[in-house]
């Protein structure tokens, strides 16, 4: 199956790499920014001022006397079409005042009509209440599609006097601190349109609101069984963690802006956690699902699966057997150690989801929140076999339980050896529901007992290659899986 490997310096780079692979193999990109050149000078059609809540709650208005974006330092204002989040009176780019918007994010956007370089912004504060209503904390960002934004410049803690004019310059070579370097853009996935009411301070690691989001239409099985995968990158410099957040839906409407809001989609968080440093990646795809595996540092492998299961049912009865799982259901720190932060096929609480025939998403969970390295849930409703295999305790033969609950050291995958010839079994990873039986198997993902493979080892079975990966830094018997590589 098509696959790619390489090194990504930022989530945006990894998203671009995914895009390159899937588009080359029949998927359709509906949106997403692949431009990694983020240093000045930057030619882009759209430029905006992203205005973070800038004062206390005693004044919830935003106001300016004027704003200009300029190509040359001290040059003429760039003409175009201006828009803003909310204007109560006045006209951009001249004096205006917003409506009372409480603590919401405010944006002023220029559509230059064509790709245009901006090196300078000139902003004049309003004639009154300047220090309360002029932008104290803001970013200047560019976009090629008016959807995904990249930060060019940022400033905060400004003070203003009435009608004061300030010039903000980002001449050639300038690079915002968020980016790794001039060709390794870093963007934040949150979307100001869908998340505008969430207040984050200027220094919050997610405050750039870049909406770094890809949406792909995978061919699926046919026109009635397509899937749409959304992925957006995040970076939290505060806890040295990068993220890619995934969601999945069987339908898509361009008029629905929110992440996870598509009809039939999953609105929760499914998050691939990565180191803030460059990571090695493996991407596997076919027409119906996407797998992303990341090697963080020397030995920490995180993973995500998004797409169709191979269902134990025909499409008439179960048209969209979708499964989605990654490291976590939240934006946990990369260095957090918890049993619940796990792999795509051995999900922790809330990290895995399956879509049943009733069109609802249900939790798939093998692991509890715990400081124990491998602790499985006792009575999960939906789980992935054979990582979860039982809820018993343990005892000695012939009463030896291979149940995984209570005492890990007896997990049966930890007790399987290869034959004397080096042969060992591999098992499908099956999503099982206690009431509904076997729902489906993860496509191209197989469970292999520990002690027989090493990380990244290529195993050939019947002339087909499979690559072995462990579950994060865990190396016990129940922490391994193979991914079909060709």
């Amino acid at each position, binding site marked *: 199956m098509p696959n790619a490997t390489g090194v990504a310096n930022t989530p945006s780079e990894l998203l671009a790499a995914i895009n390159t692979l899937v588009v080359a193999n029949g998927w359709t990109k509906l949106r997403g920014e692949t431009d990694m050149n983020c240093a000045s000078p930057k030619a882009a059609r759209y430029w905006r001022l992203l205005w973070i809540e800038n004062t206390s709650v005693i004044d919830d208005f935003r106001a300016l006397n004027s704003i200009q974006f300029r190509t040359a330092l001290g040059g003429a204002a760039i003409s175009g079409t201006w828009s803003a989040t909310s204007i109560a009176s006045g006209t951009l780019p001249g004096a205006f005042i917003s409506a009372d918007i409480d603590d919401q994010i405010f944006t002023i956007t220029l559509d230059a009509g064509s790709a245009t370089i901006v090196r300078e912004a000139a902003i004049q504060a309003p004639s009154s209440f300047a220090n309360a209503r002029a932008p104290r904390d803001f970013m200047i960002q560019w976009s090629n599609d008016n959807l995904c934004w990249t930060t060019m410049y940022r400033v905060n803690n400004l003070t203003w006097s009435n009608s004061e004019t300030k010039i903000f310059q980002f001449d050639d070579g300038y690079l915002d601190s968020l980016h790794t370097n001039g060709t390794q853009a870093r963007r934040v996935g949150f979307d100001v349109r869908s998340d505008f009411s969430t207040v984050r301070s200027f220094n919050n690691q997610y405050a750039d609101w870049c909406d770094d989001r890809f949406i792909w239409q995978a061919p699926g099985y046919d026109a009635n069984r397509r899937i749409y995968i959304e992925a957006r990158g995040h970076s939290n410099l505060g806890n040295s963690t990068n993220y890619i957040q995934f969601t999945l839906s069987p339908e898509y409407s361009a008029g629905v802006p929110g992440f996870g809001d598509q009809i039939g989609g999953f609105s929760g968080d499914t998050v691939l956690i990565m180191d803030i440093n460059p990571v090695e990646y493996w991407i596997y795809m076919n027409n119906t699902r996407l797998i992303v595996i990341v090697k963080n540092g020397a030995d920490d492998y995180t993973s995500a699966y998004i797409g169709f299961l191979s269902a134990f049912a025909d499409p008439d009865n179960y048209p969209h057997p979708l499964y989605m799982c990654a490291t976590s259901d939240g934006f946990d720190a990369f260095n957090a150690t918890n049993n619940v932060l796990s792999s795509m096929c051995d999900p922790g609480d809330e990290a895995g989801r399956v879509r049943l025939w009733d069109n609802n998403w249900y939790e798939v969970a093998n692991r509890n929140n715990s400081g124990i390295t491998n602790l499985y849930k006792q009575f999960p409703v939906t789980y992935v076999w054979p990582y979860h*295999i*039982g809820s018993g305790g343990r005892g000695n033969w012939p009463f*030896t339980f291979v149940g995984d609950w209570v005492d890990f050291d007896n997990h049966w995958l930890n007790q*399987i050896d290869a034959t004397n010839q080096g042969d060992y079994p591999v098992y499908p990873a099956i999503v099982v529901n206690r009431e509904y039986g076997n729902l489906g198997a993860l496509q191209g993902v197989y469970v292999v007992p520990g002690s027989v493979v090493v990380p990244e080892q290529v195993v050939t079975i019947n002339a087909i290659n499979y690559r072995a990966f462990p579950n994060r830094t865990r190396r016990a018997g129940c922490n391994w899986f193979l991914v079909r590589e060709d």
Partner: protein
Amino acid sequence: MAYSTGSGDYNALMAAVLAHAVADGWVEAGGIGTGWPISKGNVRGVDWSTFTIANTDFTGGGAFPKTTRWIRIAVGTSPANATANAGSTATSASFPNMEYTIDTWHIFSDPSIGDHINVVVQFSNGFDAAVFGHFSFGELNKHGMTYGGLAYASAHPVRGFAADNNGDENFARDWQAGVYGSIFRHFNGRIGYSYTSNLTYNPFQYVISPTNSPFPALPIWPAADTSHDQSRLLDTYGISQDSFEIHTVSPFNLGDANAKMGHSALIASSQPYSGGVSFMPIPILIANTTSASQTLRYINVGSAPNIRLCSLQNLLAGDEITYAGDTWQVFPMVCRKETSTLGKRGIVSSGPYGFAYKKVV
């Protein structure tokens, strides 16, 4: 010959099995037309014998003395060794119900995945018109593994009548085990069966080829060229807990009330949304003789050839299903009834659970 069928008594059955095997290329040790024992490839010898036991039939609440007939099926290192092994219950697999006239037998084989013969018999016990038994012998499906070979004889040692009257959990099932044992097995979250202390008859016997044994040359692993029974055999991956309360809280749980089946990924319920059923393989793992759980190790040696566990919730005995171009025929483990009949006094039932056999024609 990949499939054959017929009817008659146990002698006719074993003659039909012999004919089927010979048609598949098995060799009669004494020459053509001499009958059992037979051999083929890594299965260096197969033979059988028979014996009778006096029992009481409690089916339907009565108590009627009867004589039951069993067949012992055994493999060996040679035809003569197989004959010797078949002479003892300790070195053979025990197959009951041969006192009944067999209404229909089904014999399946598929040399393309290894030499084996799978047999299903159907008979009436006087109360139930369709009671079933199963046995098999040959070589495990190695799935491409490179060890030399493991020859086995396996039988479902479950009598087709209520054989005792001592409690709600011990009527027709005989604490069955082995490759075919499933219902009333105590999964308990462990792999397969290990309740050896309650086993009445031996369900499984195997001999390992001396060439390229799958096991390390250590005394804790089974030796080659020796007859081994089921005592270190694990044959089904259970996914369960043995909590009676859990099984009874929901009528939809896989385990079902009173069944103690547990939640097994490999014998999942029929999907309620589709009526479909998962055919799940029966892997065979051998454990070393270490008793401490921390040092217990398993080695997977293959699976029962062309046999699958399945739910019969939406299927009847003898139904055929085609999956991916392969035809499978399903049969109850013992007697298909509602789940609620499991474990009931005087009732012969294996609930809605059965086996699927690949039918190559």
